[in-house]
């Protein structure tokens, strides 16, 4: 996939700075994103009831995941940055989730 220069001691000066991602990989991700976009638009034409929402959100999350992990190369970051990103999303989920403890029982 990509080279991982900088992960070794020899490149210690760069402190595990990851090498650039290849054009080929990036284009592959782009194709994946396009395919998912086409899928999600198509999926709305089929009436799946409640599952429509699940499908749309699932696909959106998958697309966001591709962007975050590859375009933003979170996949190649150290565990610290990954943990931080996870924390941010967990806090957002808590905020929305706990709000639903109210609105879910009120509306």
């Amino acid at each position, binding site marked *: 996939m990509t080279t991982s220069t900088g992960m070794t001691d020899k490149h210690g000066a760069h*402190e*595990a700075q990851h090498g650039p991602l290849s054009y080929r990989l990036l284009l592959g991700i782009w194709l994946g994103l396009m395919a998912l976009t086409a899928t999600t638009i198509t999926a709305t034409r089929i009436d799946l009831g409640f599952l429509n929402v699940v499908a749309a959100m699932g696909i959106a999350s998958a697309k966001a995941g591709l962007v975050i992990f590859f375009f933003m190369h979170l996949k190649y970051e*150290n*565990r*610290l940055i990954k*943990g931080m990103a996870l*924390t*941010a999303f967990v*806090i957002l989920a*808590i*905020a929305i989730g*706990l*709000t639903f*403890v*109210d*609105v*879910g*029982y*009120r509306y």
Partner: protein
Amino acid sequence: MDQTDQTDQTDQTGHPDQTPSTAASGASQPFFGPQNPGATGGKGSGLASWIFSTDHKRIGLLYLGLIGLMFTVALVLGLILRLKLMTPGSTLLTPQQYNAMFTLHGVIMVFMVVIPSIPASFGNIFLPLQIGANDVSFPRLNNFSWWLYVLGMTLAITSIFTGAGAPDTGWTFYVPFSERTTTNVSLAVIAVFILGFSSILTGLNFITTVHRLRTPGMTWKKLPLFVWSLYATGWIQVLATPILGITALLIFAERVLHLGLFDPGLGGDPLLYQHLFWIYSHPAVYIMILPAMGVISEIIPVFARKPIFGYNMIAFSSLAIAFAGSLVWAHHMFTSGMSDTAVLVFSFLTFVVAIPSAIKVFNWLSTLYKGSISLDPPLLFSLGFIFMFSIGGLTGLVLGAAGTDIHVHDTYFVVAHFHYVIFGGTGLGMFAAMHYWFPKVFGRMYDHGRAAWAFWLILLGMNVLYFPMFIMGLQGMPRRYYDYLPQYAPLQMLSTWGSWLLAVGLGLMFWNLYRGCRFGPRATQNPWGGATLEWTLPTPLPHEAFHHDPEAPEPYDYKGINPDG
């Protein structure tokens, strides 16, 4: 915490550098005060050399100055409010002026004084020094944060004198009133947005600094607890403040564009505004209190000459508070018409967040136990903190219990609770920090006797001012009321007397510190015998603190360290 982060710190413990030396260059000049004209490398003393400074120590002092100024303004507002409430009836202020005044007291105190208080001032100065760094990770961003603070402050002050009158919504800007009032709320919420941005950037800077700039060998377990608390605070600032940002922007949008998102007439739900507001504003009280807890954790072991009891638990509880603080916001809304399930869940979670706070209190007390205590002013203020915070914290549980809250909700009980925690807690923590680090920052010592007098006056004043409010609250006196029934008159009168005592105490304290700053005896390098890195530096602090990476000390090991002078 993070494995890689620690390894890269530890793998060069064998660094040859030992203690920082004061080379005879300009860099060893004090970072403020008269500059030696002959030396090179100094930073000058003109105004521009301060307001555009990227030196964390100068930025810290800039914040300290403005925070002090804003504190004075809001304090005067508070005193006027108390004066108005001394007797029942329509006295001194019109109802509209009264509403505007308690709004401003709240907005200024919360957003411009208490939230930036300790992190932006002493945090800026001592966080880098305690981890052996010469500055924060992003010095220019640090200066930019200060400018945002100045901008937000200016806009907030402008909102008082422009438009159709000063905001009168209370500091919470609750809808639908804040959407409909003709007063200058729009400008005020923009100011709040900008102040929030400033706070975010400070937090971001601190988190990165703690991760990237610790001196070799300073593992997470050797981190001073003040740094731990600022680290936890930084996370709240980064993750909670944006919600305040969007809330303030939405109020602005509602007022200007009439989107109708919170307007019940258009199907909006005002309770969702309250949710959004408290999703930030409850964690915000931990932004306020955590740094003060950090200060107390620094001071208590130094003056008990004993290693801190339960280092791991104090450090861990800072993170626990930061996290648990994000779970409890809706306990501000028990009587708002929220679903009963939510009341139950949030009431339970509120009790959970009390645990880490209690852990800290017990650890401080255990540190003092059998210590060799010297009752110097910083410790006095710290003990005051524990006393006041305990009362404030325990009365918080009364409010957090869904049943009792219905009785005391929106009464003076809440006002008293909040002021015990924030003024008695963060306020005294701030004063403790001022007395603790004063000699290091200003290079001179204040009068200890006068400081003790000031402390006792402040403590007495606070209790006379706020304790009657607990009683009035239990008796049903609602907060924010312009007038009250005669039955509350004696306690209202007593409370106002307390405010005068408090004012005298504060005046004495500030005068004493000013005298110390100008005329006090020269301070020694380590007057209290602290073991953290800032006490290895010359007094007053030089421009460049460390010429080489210092060795990471055991922050609470006092063997062989004695107060000098």
